[in-house]
């Protein structure tokens, strides 16, 4: 298979970089190889969920909210039930456990989202009833005959509007439209050193505001599932899910049946990109099968995929950097607003991931971040390719260019100057290892025909790090901003499942619903060691001046394990 293409090797190995990090007798890497599933793909025989045919298959379509935000006064399904071909119309009352949050399987977050909404809708397209009919056209016609009496509520579509006092509460359980982290704070915090003290000693303060749009994953195969009765009172479910066991656990929870009664078949996914983890189709299709005794397919059409399919969430970032005249960044402050849309899905997790990634791949001695998971009346956001990272990376790199412009520096050299080097301390208090940004930047410059000055051309990730750059800040400024009360400090969800769910439709509380009455008051963070703020380290020197990396340090390579270099 080495004669597949005449264009030569597909991967370029740089023998000068990280030679001791890898063996050269690789079996697969660097050589063309066939995917194990590609014969099925090119012959059209790969079994996608919809390629399983069933006699007597029923089709499910949902009636959806035309409003951004509305209370449901009444759902009248009587007309729809009389439509030709209609077998059954489901509403929220038919769902055994009609409230869930995806990450409840990891015991993270409050159950906030119904499968079929009964009391309130919080985004356009939110499903309120599911029609099951003999044909898709009949299901479609009957879904439009479901009559809902709405009480339209004020809505909010902008993250910063949503967290202002008096904004409409998207979810009753998060009345301030902010997810609660760790039972303590209405945002995710990162505190490292003292940015405000550092800003006082810099040559430039560079500010920027960055806005990313939601992005639809747009797989060519729309999301869907087919369920059918099996022997021994089990149900089989063919699904497009990207997360088979996630979907299995979610279906078992919402249908209140042991997962041993569910037989999930998946793994052939017609493009996912994150948009097929939300586990909406499987419980509905299985519920349809449970209530009709027949195979039921629930799949989105293209319009639904684009409108109600959860996208990558929009993000808004404010970055303030303190920069020395030589381009060294000594302080970086983030205020981030992540638009979760109407329900949590995976946004709360995306922020934890994103904050762990700050301040980007740069050694900055003072870092501050407040990142909010904000509810708005937009389509709920979910996973998409590096979600939590890609948005803020765009902001960071756009900001790096702005800094380069401000200090009059080549933007690639600015990145090399500030890049992580082996042995540096990262803002989340882990040592930087196996760094490669400098080498990547050098290759980019070479490929782009950008001439670097000899100093930056000679820089390496393996030297110049550690030492003072490995030191934790002598003082870290902390605060209690965004402290909330009334949320359980250790766990958000009770183990008992549905019974822990706050009552939907309850009067919007001025306080968050008390999920778990904690006997003892939430633990306060330990008092900070008293250190003089003047000790905030401000690195202004060029990293090349620093002493070389500690020789003989252990390095980890996924190929060869731990190794001393």
């Amino acid at each position: 298979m080495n004669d597949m293409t005449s264009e030569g090797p597909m991967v370029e190995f740089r023998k000068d970089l990280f030679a001791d990090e890898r063996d050269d007798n690789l079996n697969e890497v660097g050589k063309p190889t066939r995917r194990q599933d590609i014969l099925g793909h090119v012959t059209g025989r790969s079994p996608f969920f919809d390629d399983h045919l069933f006699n007597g298959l029923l089709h499910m379509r949902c009636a959806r909210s035309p409003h951004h935000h509305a209370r449901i006064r009444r759902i009248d399904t009587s007309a729809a039930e009389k439509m030709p071909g209609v077998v059954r119309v489901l509403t929220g009352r038919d769902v055994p456990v009609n409230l869930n949050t995806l990450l409840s399987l990891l015991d993270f977050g409050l159950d906030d989202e119904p499968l079929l909404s009964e009391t309130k809708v919080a985004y356009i397209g939110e499903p309120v009833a599911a029609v099951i009919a003999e044909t898709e056209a009949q299901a479609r016609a009957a879904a439009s005959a479901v009559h809902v009496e709405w009480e339209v509520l004020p809505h909010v579509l902008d993250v910063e509007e949503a967290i202002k006092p008096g904004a409409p509460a998207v979810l009753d359980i998060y009345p301030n439209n902010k997810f609660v982290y760790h039972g303590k704070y209405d945002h995710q915090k990162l505190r490292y050193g003292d940015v405000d003290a550092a800003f006082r000693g810099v040559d430039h303060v560079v500010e920027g505001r960055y806005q990313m749009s939601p992005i639809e994953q747009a797989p060519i195969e729309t999301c869907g599932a087919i369920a059918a009765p099996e022997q021994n009172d089990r149900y089989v479910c063919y699904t497009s899910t990207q997360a088979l066991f996630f979907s299995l656990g979610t279906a078992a929870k919402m249908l209140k049946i042991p997962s041993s009664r569910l037989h999930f078949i998946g793994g052939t996914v017609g493009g996912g990109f994150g948009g097929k983890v939300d586990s909406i189709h499987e419980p509905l299709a299985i519920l349809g099968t449970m209530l009709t005794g027949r195979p039921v397919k629930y799949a989105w059409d293209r319009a639904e995929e684009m409108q109600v399919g959860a996208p990558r969430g929009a993000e808004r970032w404010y970055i303030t950097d303190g920069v020395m005249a030589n381009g060294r960044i000594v302080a970086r402050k983030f205020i981030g607003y992540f638009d979760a849309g109407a329900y949590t899905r995976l946004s709360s997790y995306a922020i934890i991931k994103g904050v762990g990634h700050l301040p980007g791949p740069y050694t900055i001695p003072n870092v501050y971040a407040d990142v909010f998971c904000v509810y708005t009346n937009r389509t709920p956001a979910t996973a998409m390719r590096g979600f939590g990272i890609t948005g803020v990376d765009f902001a960071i790199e756009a900001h790096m260019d702005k800094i380069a412009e401000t200090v009059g520096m080549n933007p690639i050299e600015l990145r090399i100057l500030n890049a992580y080097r082996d042995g540096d301390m990262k803002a989340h208090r882990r040592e930087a290892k196996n760094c490669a940004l400098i080498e990547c930047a050098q290759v980019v410059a070479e490929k782009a025909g950008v001439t670097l000055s000899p100093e930056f051309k000679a820089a390496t990730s393996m030297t110049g790090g550690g030492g003072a750059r490995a030191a934790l800040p002598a003082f870290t400024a902390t605060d209690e901003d965004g402290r909330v009360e009334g949320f359980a400090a250790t766990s958000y969800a009770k183990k008992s499942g549905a019974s822990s769910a706050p009552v939907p439709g309850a009067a919007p509380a001025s306080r968050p619903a008390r999920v778990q009455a904690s006997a003892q008051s939430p633990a306060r963070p330990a008092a900070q060691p008293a250190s003089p703020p003047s000790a905030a380290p401000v690195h202004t020197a060029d990293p090349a001046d620093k002493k070389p990396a500690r020789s003989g340090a252990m390095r980890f390579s996924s190929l060869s394990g731990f190794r001393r270099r």
Partner: protein
Amino acid sequence: MAKTPVTFTLNGSAKAAFANPGQNLLDFLRREVGDLAPKYGCGQGTCGACTVTIDGETMLSCLVLAQAVEGQDVRTASGLATGATLDPLQVAFMDHFAAQCGYCTPGMLVSARALLDRNPRPGREDVIEAISGNLCRCTGYEPIIAAILAVANGKARA
């Protein structure tokens, strides 16, 4: 309403099946005839996953009424291989990593085959034009273009 019998040729074999009223060719091929290679991606003629040829012309089967193929010659990706012998395009797609999720692949292959049947030596622009109605969300198209050109240039393994 009554079902309509439709008699046609599918990948060289005579076929007859009943079409439901208003049923499109895509649904008819998949549900009534059992050829699952054409895929549903949009149902509105924008994604190309359902591409077939009818009398040699590429068509979007989601936009064709099943009854319209009465007496006509329909070809899908299922007909590309002859027994265990793959079409050179199928081999080239495998070798060039021209499929990731594989969902657009049957339609993409039908468009590529139709191109090579009418123009055995297409240039890059011809290839791009020929697959411009087939959306792929995974590959970024370059591996697909390379695979088709490899066959056109005789560089693919037969």
